[in-house]
Protein backbone atom coordinates (compact mmCIF):
# COMPACT_ATOMS: atom_id res chain seq x y z
CA UNK A 1 0.00 0.00 0.00
CA UNK A 2 1.41 3.35 -1.07
CA UNK A 3 0.99 6.37 1.19
CA UNK A 4 2.10 9.97 0.91
CA UNK A 5 4.67 11.07 3.52
CA UNK A 6 2.36 13.96 4.42
CA UNK A 7 0.00 11.43 6.03
CA UNK A 8 2.49 10.29 8.66
CA UNK A 9 5.27 12.85 8.81
CA UNK A 10 6.11 16.54 9.07
CA UNK A 11 9.14 18.35 7.79
CA UNK A 12 11.08 21.59 8.28
CA UNK A 13 13.50 23.08 5.78
CA UNK A 14 16.57 25.07 6.70
CA UNK A 15 19.52 26.39 4.73
CA UNK A 16 23.26 26.92 5.01
CA UNK A 17 24.92 28.42 1.96
CA UNK A 18 23.98 26.29 -1.05
CA UNK A 19 22.85 23.42 1.21
CA UNK A 20 19.27 22.62 2.16
CA UNK A 21 18.56 20.73 5.38
CA UNK A 22 15.29 18.81 5.53
CA UNK A 23 14.24 17.40 8.90
CA UNK A 24 11.61 14.67 8.63
CA UNK A 25 9.65 13.66 11.74
CA UNK A 26 7.14 10.88 12.35
CA UNK A 27 3.90 12.21 13.89
CA UNK A 28 3.63 8.88 15.67
CA UNK A 29 7.03 7.65 16.78
CA UNK A 30 6.00 4.08 15.87
CA UNK A 31 6.33 5.14 12.22
CA UNK A 32 10.00 6.00 12.64
CA UNK A 33 11.09 2.51 11.59
CA UNK A 34 9.00 2.77 8.43
CA UNK A 35 10.51 6.16 7.59
CA UNK A 36 13.99 4.79 8.17
CA UNK A 37 13.33 1.87 5.83
CA UNK A 38 11.63 3.80 3.01
CA UNK A 39 12.98 7.33 3.02
CA UNK A 40 16.57 6.65 2.09
CA UNK A 41 19.05 9.29 0.97
CA UNK A 42 18.83 7.83 -2.54
CA UNK A 43 15.02 8.03 -2.59
CA UNK A 44 15.10 11.65 -1.44
CA UNK A 45 17.73 12.49 -4.04
CA UNK A 46 15.50 10.99 -6.76
CA UNK A 47 12.36 12.73 -5.48
CA UNK A 48 14.03 16.15 -5.36
CA UNK A 49 16.24 15.69 -8.43
CA UNK A 50 14.71 18.72 -10.17
CA UNK A 51 16.18 20.95 -7.47
CA UNK A 52 18.94 19.14 -5.61
CA UNK A 53 21.98 18.73 -7.81
CA UNK A 54 24.53 17.56 -5.24
CA UNK A 55 24.68 14.62 -2.87
CA UNK A 56 22.10 13.86 -0.19
CA UNK A 57 23.36 12.64 3.19
CA UNK A 58 21.00 11.16 5.79
CA UNK A 59 21.46 11.28 9.56
CA UNK A 60 19.33 9.08 11.81
CA UNK A 61 18.06 10.72 15.00
CA UNK A 62 16.11 8.08 16.96
CA UNK A 63 16.09 10.32 20.06
CA UNK A 64 13.60 12.61 18.32
CA UNK A 65 12.22 10.05 15.80
CA UNK A 66 13.65 12.04 12.93
CA UNK A 67 15.71 11.72 9.81
CA UNK A 68 17.91 14.64 8.80
CA UNK A 69 18.63 15.05 5.08
CA UNK A 70 21.48 17.35 4.14
CA UNK A 71 21.13 18.20 0.45
CA UNK A 72 24.08 19.85 -1.31
CA UNK A 73 23.80 22.22 -4.28
CA UNK A 74 20.11 22.72 -3.70
CA UNK A 75 19.66 26.49 -3.73
CA UNK A 76 21.11 27.65 -7.02
CA UNK A 77 24.30 29.10 -5.46
CA UNK A 78 22.96 29.91 -2.02
CA UNK A 79 20.59 32.30 -0.37
CA UNK A 80 22.51 35.53 -0.85
CA UNK A 81 23.06 35.24 -4.59
CA UNK A 82 20.35 32.84 -5.78
CA UNK A 83 17.96 34.07 -8.45
CA UNK A 84 15.33 31.50 -7.36
CA UNK A 85 11.86 32.63 -6.30
CA UNK A 86 12.46 30.73 -3.03
CA UNK A 87 16.17 31.24 -2.37
CA UNK A 88 15.98 29.61 1.08
CA UNK A 89 14.43 26.44 -0.34
CA UNK A 90 11.58 26.67 2.19
CA UNK A 91 9.22 24.98 -0.30
CA UNK A 92 11.34 21.84 -0.34
CA UNK A 93 9.96 20.66 3.01
CA UNK A 94 6.46 20.36 1.57
CA UNK A 95 7.73 18.89 -1.66
CA UNK A 96 9.43 16.12 0.30
CA UNK A 97 6.09 15.37 1.99
CA UNK A 98 4.62 14.70 -1.47
CA UNK A 99 6.86 11.64 -1.76
CA UNK A 100 5.06 8.30 -1.82
CA UNK A 101 6.36 5.34 0.16
CA UNK A 102 5.42 1.68 0.46
CA UNK A 103 3.72 1.37 3.85
CA UNK A 104 3.24 -2.45 3.83
CA UNK A 105 5.61 -5.00 5.37
Amino acid at each position, binding site marked *: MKIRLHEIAHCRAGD*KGDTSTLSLFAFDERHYTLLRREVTAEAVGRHLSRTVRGEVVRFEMPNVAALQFVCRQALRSG*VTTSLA*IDPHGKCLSSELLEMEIEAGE
Partner: protein
Amino acid sequence: MIRIGCGAGFGGDRLEPAVTLLERAGLDYLVLECLAERTIGLGQKRRMHDPEAGYDPLLDRRLAPLLPLLKRHGTRLITNMGSANPLAAGRRVVRLAEEAGMALTVAVVTGDDVLGIIDPAAPSLENGRPLSGHGPILSANAYLGADALLPALETGADVVITGRVADPSLVVAPLAHRFGWKLDDWDRIGQATVIGHLLECAGQITGGYFADPGRKDVPGLADLGFPFADIDAEGRCRIGKLAGTGGLITAATVKEQLLYEVTDPSGYVTPDAVADFRAVRITPTGPDQVEVVGGTAKPRPDTLKVSVGYHAGFVGEGEISYAGANALGRARLAGRILDERLRPSIPELTVECLGGEAYRHGFLEGLPPTVEYRLRVVGRAADAATAGEIGREVEAMLTNGPAGGGGARGSVRETVGIVSTLVERSRVRPQVTVVESAR
Protein backbone atom coordinates in the same frame (compact mmCIF):
# COMPACT_ATOMS: atom_id res chain seq x y z
CA MET B 1 16.96 28.99 37.97
CA ILE B 2 17.03 31.77 35.42
CA ARG B 3 14.58 32.75 32.73
CA ILE B 4 15.73 33.84 29.27
CA GLY B 5 13.27 35.05 26.63
CA CYS B 6 13.78 35.54 22.92
CA GLY B 7 12.04 38.60 21.49
CA ALA B 8 13.21 38.54 17.88
CA GLY B 9 14.37 35.79 15.55
CA PHE B 10 15.39 37.94 12.59
CA GLY B 11 15.89 41.60 11.77
CA GLY B 12 12.39 42.18 10.45
CA ASP B 13 10.58 40.23 13.17
CA ARG B 14 7.45 41.59 14.88
CA LEU B 15 8.05 44.29 17.47
CA GLU B 16 5.36 43.59 20.07
CA PRO B 17 6.10 40.04 21.32
CA ALA B 18 9.25 41.30 23.07
CA VAL B 19 7.16 43.94 24.85
CA THR B 20 4.72 41.27 26.01
CA LEU B 21 7.56 39.06 27.25
CA LEU B 22 9.11 41.91 29.24
CA GLU B 23 5.80 42.99 30.72
CA ARG B 24 4.61 39.57 31.83
CA ALA B 25 7.29 36.89 31.80
CA GLY B 26 9.59 38.04 34.61
CA LEU B 27 12.68 37.60 32.45
CA ASP B 28 16.23 37.72 33.74
CA TYR B 29 17.52 38.14 30.19
CA LEU B 30 15.95 39.13 26.90
CA VAL B 31 17.74 38.10 23.71
CA LEU B 32 17.09 39.73 20.33
CA GLU B 33 18.67 37.92 17.38
CA CYS B 34 18.49 40.29 14.43
CA LEU B 35 21.47 39.55 12.21
CA ALA B 36 21.20 37.41 9.07
CA GLU B 37 24.21 36.35 7.02
CA ARG B 38 24.33 39.22 4.59
CA THR B 39 23.04 41.94 6.93
CA ILE B 40 26.50 43.10 8.01
CA GLY B 41 27.59 43.61 4.40
CA LEU B 42 24.58 45.83 3.80
CA GLY B 43 25.30 47.63 7.09
CA GLN B 44 28.91 48.16 6.08
CA LYS B 45 27.73 49.90 2.91
CA ARG B 46 25.51 52.23 4.96
CA ARG B 47 28.42 52.95 7.29
CA MET B 48 30.59 54.01 4.34
CA HIS B 49 28.07 56.74 3.57
CA ASP B 50 27.53 57.72 7.22
CA PRO B 51 30.03 56.81 9.99
CA GLU B 52 27.24 56.75 12.60
CA ALA B 53 25.12 54.30 10.55
CA GLY B 54 25.53 50.59 9.87
CA TYR B 55 23.67 49.21 12.88
CA ASP B 56 20.24 47.58 12.67
CA PRO B 57 17.89 50.03 10.89
CA LEU B 58 15.02 49.03 13.20
CA LEU B 59 17.02 49.71 16.37
CA ASP B 60 15.06 52.83 17.40
CA ARG B 61 11.66 51.32 16.74
CA ARG B 62 12.50 48.03 18.43
CA LEU B 63 14.37 49.26 21.49
CA ALA B 64 12.61 52.53 22.40
CA PRO B 65 9.57 50.71 23.85
CA LEU B 66 11.76 48.06 25.50
CA LEU B 67 14.24 50.18 27.45
CA PRO B 68 11.84 51.41 30.19
CA LEU B 69 10.49 47.88 30.60
CA LEU B 70 14.00 46.43 30.94
CA LYS B 71 14.68 48.83 33.79
CA ARG B 72 11.34 48.31 35.49
CA HIS B 73 11.66 44.53 35.52
CA GLY B 74 15.41 44.25 36.06
CA THR B 75 15.88 42.39 32.80
CA ARG B 76 19.17 42.54 30.91
CA LEU B 77 19.15 42.74 27.12
CA ILE B 78 21.60 40.93 24.86
CA THR B 79 21.40 41.65 21.14
CA ASN B 80 23.45 41.60 17.95
CA MET B 81 21.67 44.69 16.59
CA GLY B 82 25.05 46.42 16.47
CA SER B 83 25.58 44.77 13.07
CA ALA B 84 28.35 46.60 11.19
CA ASN B 85 28.67 49.39 13.76
CA PRO B 86 28.15 48.20 17.36
CA LEU B 87 29.72 51.31 18.92
CA ALA B 88 27.36 53.64 17.07
CA ALA B 89 24.50 51.33 18.08
CA GLY B 90 25.59 51.55 21.72
CA ARG B 91 25.69 55.34 21.54
CA ARG B 92 22.27 55.37 19.91
CA VAL B 93 20.79 53.16 22.66
CA VAL B 94 22.20 55.51 25.30
CA ARG B 95 20.66 58.46 23.44
CA LEU B 96 17.29 56.69 23.40
CA ALA B 97 17.58 56.20 27.17
CA GLU B 98 18.44 59.86 27.68
CA GLU B 99 15.44 60.90 25.62
CA ALA B 100 13.33 58.76 27.94
CA GLY B 101 15.02 60.26 31.00
CA MET B 102 16.57 56.97 32.05
CA ALA B 103 19.89 55.92 33.51
CA LEU B 104 21.28 53.13 31.33
CA THR B 105 24.59 51.37 30.88
CA VAL B 106 25.44 49.67 27.60
CA ALA B 107 28.37 47.31 27.06
CA VAL B 108 29.45 47.16 23.42
CA VAL B 109 31.33 44.11 22.15
CA THR B 110 33.58 44.75 19.16
CA GLY B 111 36.33 42.80 17.48
CA ASP B 112 34.27 40.70 15.09
CA ASP B 113 35.35 42.95 12.19
CA VAL B 114 38.36 41.09 10.75
CA LEU B 115 38.51 42.75 7.33
CA GLY B 116 42.06 43.83 8.12
CA ILE B 117 43.40 40.33 8.84
CA ILE B 118 41.76 38.04 6.31
CA ASP B 119 43.68 37.03 3.20
CA PRO B 120 41.65 38.01 0.13
CA ALA B 121 43.46 35.30 -1.85
CA ALA B 122 42.39 32.53 0.56
CA PRO B 123 39.94 30.00 -0.88
CA SER B 124 36.30 30.28 0.20
CA LEU B 125 34.88 27.35 2.15
CA GLU B 126 31.92 27.12 -0.22
CA ASN B 127 33.63 26.67 -3.58
CA GLY B 128 37.39 26.97 -3.16
CA ARG B 129 37.61 30.09 -5.30
CA PRO B 130 39.62 33.00 -3.84
CA LEU B 131 37.54 35.26 -1.59
CA SER B 132 38.31 38.34 -3.70
CA GLY B 133 37.46 36.47 -6.92
CA HIS B 134 33.73 36.69 -6.09
CA GLY B 135 33.55 40.47 -6.26
CA PRO B 136 34.78 43.54 -4.39
CA ILE B 137 34.89 42.62 -0.67
CA LEU B 138 32.66 44.75 1.56
CA SER B 139 32.96 43.15 4.97
CA ALA B 140 34.53 40.30 6.92
CA ASN B 141 33.12 39.40 10.30
CA ALA B 142 34.16 36.56 12.56
CA TYR B 143 31.53 34.72 14.57
CA LEU B 144 32.44 35.59 18.16
CA GLY B 145 31.38 33.30 20.98
CA ALA B 146 30.32 33.38 24.61
CA ASP B 147 33.89 34.15 25.68
CA ALA B 148 33.57 37.55 23.97
CA LEU B 149 30.24 38.28 25.66
CA LEU B 150 31.19 37.28 29.22
CA PRO B 151 33.35 40.34 29.97
CA ALA B 152 30.49 42.54 28.77
CA LEU B 153 28.07 40.82 31.14
CA GLU B 154 30.56 41.17 33.96
CA THR B 155 30.42 44.97 33.64
CA GLY B 156 26.86 44.80 34.97
CA ALA B 157 25.55 46.71 31.94
CA ASP B 158 21.81 46.79 31.34
CA VAL B 159 22.30 46.19 27.63
CA VAL B 160 24.95 44.15 25.83
CA ILE B 161 25.15 44.98 22.15
CA THR B 162 27.30 43.18 19.60
CA GLY B 163 27.95 42.72 15.92
CA ARG B 164 28.53 39.22 14.54
CA VAL B 165 28.20 36.63 17.28
CA ALA B 166 27.10 33.03 16.85
CA ASP B 167 23.36 32.98 17.56
CA PRO B 168 23.42 30.33 20.34
CA SER B 169 26.22 32.24 22.11
CA LEU B 170 23.69 34.97 22.93
CA VAL B 171 22.19 32.41 25.33
CA VAL B 172 25.30 30.42 26.27
CA ALA B 173 26.94 33.58 27.67
CA PRO B 174 24.29 34.56 30.22
CA LEU B 175 24.02 30.94 31.41
CA ALA B 176 27.77 30.64 31.90
CA HIS B 177 27.81 34.07 33.53
CA ARG B 178 24.98 33.43 35.97
CA PHE B 179 25.89 29.88 36.95
CA GLY B 180 29.64 30.30 36.77
CA TRP B 181 29.98 27.48 34.22
CA LYS B 182 33.46 26.99 32.88
CA LEU B 183 33.59 27.46 29.13
CA ASP B 184 35.30 24.07 28.81
CA ASP B 185 32.58 22.26 30.76
CA TRP B 186 31.53 20.60 27.50
CA ASP B 187 28.38 18.90 28.75
CA ARG B 188 26.95 22.13 30.13
CA ILE B 189 28.15 24.27 27.22
CA GLY B 190 26.71 21.69 24.80
CA GLN B 191 23.35 21.80 26.56
CA ALA B 192 23.48 25.61 26.66
CA THR B 193 24.15 25.60 22.92
CA VAL B 194 21.07 23.43 22.40
CA ILE B 195 18.98 25.89 24.42
CA GLY B 196 20.38 28.84 22.48
CA HIS B 197 19.78 27.11 19.17
CA LEU B 198 16.17 26.40 20.16
CA LEU B 199 15.46 29.98 21.31
CA GLU B 200 17.29 31.94 18.61
CA CYS B 201 14.51 31.89 16.02
CA ALA B 202 11.91 33.15 18.51
CA GLY B 203 8.47 32.30 17.09
CA GLN B 204 9.78 29.28 15.21
CA ILE B 205 9.52 27.28 18.43
CA THR B 206 6.08 28.58 19.47
CA GLY B 207 4.22 27.53 16.34
CA GLY B 208 5.56 29.96 13.77
CA TYR B 209 6.77 28.34 10.54
CA PHE B 210 4.92 25.17 11.62
CA ALA B 211 1.23 25.36 10.66
CA ASP B 212 -0.19 23.08 7.98
CA PRO B 213 -3.99 23.51 8.16
CA GLY B 214 -5.79 20.27 8.92
CA ARG B 215 -2.54 18.48 9.65
CA LYS B 216 -0.69 20.77 12.05
CA ASP B 217 -3.11 23.43 13.28
CA VAL B 218 -1.75 26.37 15.27
CA PRO B 219 -4.09 28.71 17.15
CA GLY B 220 -3.64 32.46 17.23
CA LEU B 221 -0.94 32.97 14.62
CA ALA B 222 -1.89 36.64 14.31
CA ASP B 223 -0.77 37.07 17.92
CA LEU B 224 2.07 34.59 18.15
CA GLY B 225 3.71 34.50 21.57
CA PHE B 226 7.50 34.23 21.74
CA PRO B 227 9.36 31.72 23.91
CA PHE B 228 11.25 31.76 27.16
CA ALA B 229 13.33 29.08 28.83
CA ASP B 230 13.78 28.34 32.52
CA ILE B 231 17.20 26.83 33.08
CA ASP B 232 18.70 25.49 36.31
CA ALA B 233 22.35 25.32 37.35
CA GLU B 234 22.63 21.81 35.91
CA GLY B 235 21.36 22.98 32.51
CA ARG B 236 17.96 21.33 32.73
CA CYS B 237 15.64 23.44 30.65
CA ARG B 238 11.93 24.00 30.35
CA ILE B 239 10.67 25.99 27.40
CA GLY B 240 7.35 27.80 27.60
CA LYS B 241 5.37 30.80 26.48
CA LEU B 242 2.94 33.19 28.17
CA ALA B 243 -0.63 32.04 28.72
CA GLY B 244 -3.05 33.93 26.52
CA THR B 245 -0.61 34.47 23.66
CA GLY B 246 -1.08 32.74 20.32
CA GLY B 247 0.79 29.76 18.98
CA LEU B 248 1.72 26.53 20.73
CA ILE B 249 4.70 24.69 22.10
CA THR B 250 4.73 20.93 21.67
CA ALA B 251 7.40 18.27 21.35
CA ALA B 252 6.89 18.58 17.58
CA THR B 253 7.52 22.34 17.36
CA VAL B 254 10.65 21.96 19.48
CA LYS B 255 11.95 18.95 17.54
CA GLU B 256 11.60 20.83 14.26
CA GLN B 257 13.68 23.67 15.64
CA LEU B 258 16.30 21.33 17.11
CA LEU B 259 17.33 20.18 13.64
CA TYR B 260 16.70 23.49 11.84
CA GLU B 261 19.68 24.45 9.65
CA VAL B 262 21.79 21.65 11.14
CA THR B 263 24.16 20.01 8.67
CA ASP B 264 25.58 17.48 11.17
CA PRO B 265 23.54 16.69 14.30
CA SER B 266 26.58 15.00 15.87
CA GLY B 267 28.79 18.04 15.35
CA TYR B 268 27.07 21.43 15.34
CA VAL B 269 30.00 23.81 15.19
CA THR B 270 29.86 27.10 17.07
CA PRO B 271 32.66 29.24 18.54
CA ASP B 272 31.77 27.77 21.95
CA ALA B 273 31.68 24.06 21.24
CA VAL B 274 31.05 21.31 18.72
CA ALA B 275 27.64 20.40 20.03
CA ASP B 276 26.13 16.93 19.78
CA PHE B 277 22.32 16.72 19.51
CA ARG B 278 22.04 12.92 19.35
CA ALA B 279 21.16 12.43 23.02
CA VAL B 280 18.81 15.40 23.35
CA ARG B 281 15.45 14.38 24.82
CA ILE B 282 12.34 16.51 24.39
CA THR B 283 9.44 15.76 26.73
CA PRO B 284 6.11 17.58 27.15
CA THR B 285 5.68 18.62 30.79
CA GLY B 286 2.49 20.71 30.61
CA PRO B 287 0.39 22.87 28.34
CA ASP B 288 2.75 24.76 26.01
CA GLN B 289 5.73 23.51 27.96
CA VAL B 290 8.46 20.99 27.15
CA GLU B 291 11.57 19.86 28.95
CA VAL B 292 14.85 19.66 27.04
CA VAL B 293 17.84 17.76 28.40
CA GLY B 294 20.79 15.80 27.08
CA GLY B 295 22.78 18.25 24.98
CA THR B 296 26.51 17.68 25.05
CA ALA B 297 29.57 18.73 23.11
CA LYS B 298 33.14 18.15 22.08
CA PRO B 299 35.74 20.93 22.53
CA ARG B 300 35.42 24.11 20.58
CA PRO B 301 37.43 24.62 17.35
CA ASP B 302 40.67 26.65 17.26
CA THR B 303 39.36 28.64 14.31
CA LEU B 304 36.43 31.01 13.96
CA LYS B 305 34.17 31.11 10.92
CA VAL B 306 34.23 34.40 9.05
CA SER B 307 31.42 35.64 6.80
CA VAL B 308 32.83 37.67 3.95
CA GLY B 309 30.39 40.01 2.23
CA TYR B 310 31.09 41.02 -1.36
CA HIS B 311 29.42 43.17 -3.95
CA ALA B 312 27.49 40.71 -6.12
CA GLY B 313 26.20 43.09 -8.73
CA PHE B 314 22.64 44.13 -9.42
CA VAL B 315 19.63 41.90 -9.77
CA GLY B 316 16.91 43.05 -12.12
CA GLU B 317 13.50 41.46 -11.98
CA GLY B 318 10.27 41.77 -13.92
CA GLU B 319 6.88 40.06 -13.78
CA ILE B 320 3.76 39.99 -15.95
CA SER B 321 0.51 38.01 -15.71
CA TYR B 322 -1.35 35.93 -18.27
CA ALA B 323 -4.74 34.42 -17.47
CA GLY B 324 -7.62 32.60 -19.11
CA ALA B 325 -7.65 30.91 -22.51
CA ASN B 326 -4.21 29.66 -23.58
CA ALA B 327 -2.59 31.55 -20.70
CA LEU B 328 0.29 29.10 -20.60
CA GLY B 329 0.91 29.39 -24.34
CA ARG B 330 1.05 33.16 -24.16
CA ALA B 331 3.26 33.15 -21.05
CA ARG B 332 5.68 30.80 -22.80
CA LEU B 333 5.75 33.00 -25.89
CA ALA B 334 6.51 36.08 -23.79
CA GLY B 335 9.21 34.10 -21.98
CA ARG B 336 10.86 33.12 -25.30
CA ILE B 337 10.77 36.71 -26.55
CA LEU B 338 12.29 38.03 -23.34
CA ASP B 339 14.97 35.34 -23.31
CA GLU B 340 15.90 36.17 -26.93
CA ARG B 341 16.17 39.89 -26.22
CA LEU B 342 17.85 39.83 -22.79
CA ARG B 343 20.23 36.88 -22.74
CA PRO B 344 22.90 38.42 -25.01
CA SER B 345 23.54 41.21 -22.48
CA ILE B 346 22.53 39.29 -19.30
CA PRO B 347 23.79 35.68 -19.51
CA GLU B 348 22.85 34.93 -15.88
CA LEU B 349 19.11 34.98 -16.59
CA THR B 350 16.13 32.93 -15.42
CA VAL B 351 12.70 32.85 -17.08
CA GLU B 352 10.04 30.94 -15.16
CA CYS B 353 6.35 30.79 -14.32
CA LEU B 354 5.08 31.49 -10.81
CA GLY B 355 2.13 29.33 -9.91
CA GLY B 356 3.75 26.65 -12.00
CA GLU B 357 7.00 25.08 -10.95
CA ALA B 358 9.24 28.05 -10.31
CA TYR B 359 9.90 26.94 -6.74
CA ARG B 360 11.56 23.83 -8.14
CA HIS B 361 13.69 25.94 -10.43
CA GLY B 362 11.46 24.58 -13.19
CA PHE B 363 10.90 25.90 -16.66
CA LEU B 364 7.28 25.42 -17.59
CA GLU B 365 7.53 21.63 -17.90
CA GLY B 366 4.72 19.39 -16.67
CA LEU B 367 2.59 22.20 -15.33
CA PRO B 368 -0.85 21.30 -14.00
CA PRO B 369 -3.82 23.00 -15.65
CA THR B 370 -4.52 26.40 -14.17
CA VAL B 371 -6.03 29.64 -15.39
CA GLU B 372 -3.36 32.08 -14.32
CA TYR B 373 0.39 32.30 -14.86
CA ARG B 374 2.79 34.98 -13.72
CA LEU B 375 5.90 35.07 -15.83
CA ARG B 376 9.02 35.99 -13.88
CA VAL B 377 12.28 37.09 -15.45
CA VAL B 378 15.28 37.68 -13.24
CA GLY B 379 18.96 38.15 -13.95
CA ARG B 380 22.19 39.50 -12.59
CA ALA B 381 24.30 42.23 -14.16
CA ALA B 382 27.38 44.16 -13.12
CA ASP B 383 25.65 47.53 -13.31
CA ALA B 384 22.22 48.83 -12.39
CA ALA B 385 21.41 50.13 -15.87
CA THR B 386 21.85 46.71 -17.50
CA ALA B 387 19.86 45.01 -14.74
CA GLY B 388 17.11 47.59 -15.27
CA GLU B 389 16.71 46.38 -18.86
CA ILE B 390 14.86 43.33 -17.52
CA GLY B 391 12.01 45.36 -16.06
CA ARG B 392 11.83 47.56 -19.14
CA GLU B 393 11.72 44.58 -21.52
CA VAL B 394 9.01 42.89 -19.44
CA GLU B 395 6.98 46.08 -19.52
CA ALA B 396 7.37 46.17 -23.29
CA MET B 397 5.41 42.90 -23.40
CA LEU B 398 2.33 45.02 -22.69
CA THR B 399 2.29 46.29 -26.28
CA ASN B 400 4.95 44.22 -28.07
CA GLY B 401 4.30 40.70 -26.81
CA PRO B 402 1.49 38.15 -26.72
CA ALA B 403 -2.14 39.14 -26.22
CA GLY B 404 -3.56 39.96 -22.84
CA GLY B 405 -0.51 40.42 -20.65
CA GLY B 406 -1.17 42.54 -17.57
CA GLY B 407 0.29 43.78 -14.31
CA ALA B 408 3.85 44.27 -15.55
CA ARG B 409 6.33 45.32 -12.87
CA GLY B 410 10.07 45.70 -12.72
CA SER B 411 12.70 46.36 -10.05
CA VAL B 412 16.45 46.50 -9.52
CA ARG B 413 18.31 45.78 -6.32
CA GLU B 414 21.92 45.78 -5.35
CA THR B 415 23.02 42.45 -3.90
CA VAL B 416 25.58 41.43 -1.31
CA GLY B 417 26.89 37.89 -1.58
CA ILE B 418 28.40 35.91 1.27
CA VAL B 419 31.24 33.42 1.28
CA SER B 420 33.08 32.03 4.28
CA THR B 421 36.60 31.50 5.48
CA LEU B 422 38.27 30.60 8.75
CA VAL B 423 40.57 32.64 10.94
CA GLU B 424 42.74 31.54 13.85
CA ARG B 425 40.93 32.30 17.11
CA SER B 426 44.12 33.77 18.58
CA ARG B 427 44.15 36.49 15.91
CA VAL B 428 40.69 37.77 16.87
CA ARG B 429 40.63 40.11 19.87
CA PRO B 430 37.16 40.95 21.17
CA GLN B 431 36.86 44.15 23.19
CA VAL B 432 34.25 45.66 25.47
CA THR B 433 33.44 49.37 25.62
CA VAL B 434 31.01 50.71 28.20
CA VAL B 435 28.83 53.69 27.36
CA GLU B 436 26.42 55.26 29.84
CA SER B 437 23.56 57.70 29.67
CA ALA B 438 24.15 61.16 31.11
CA ARG B 439 21.54 60.79 33.83
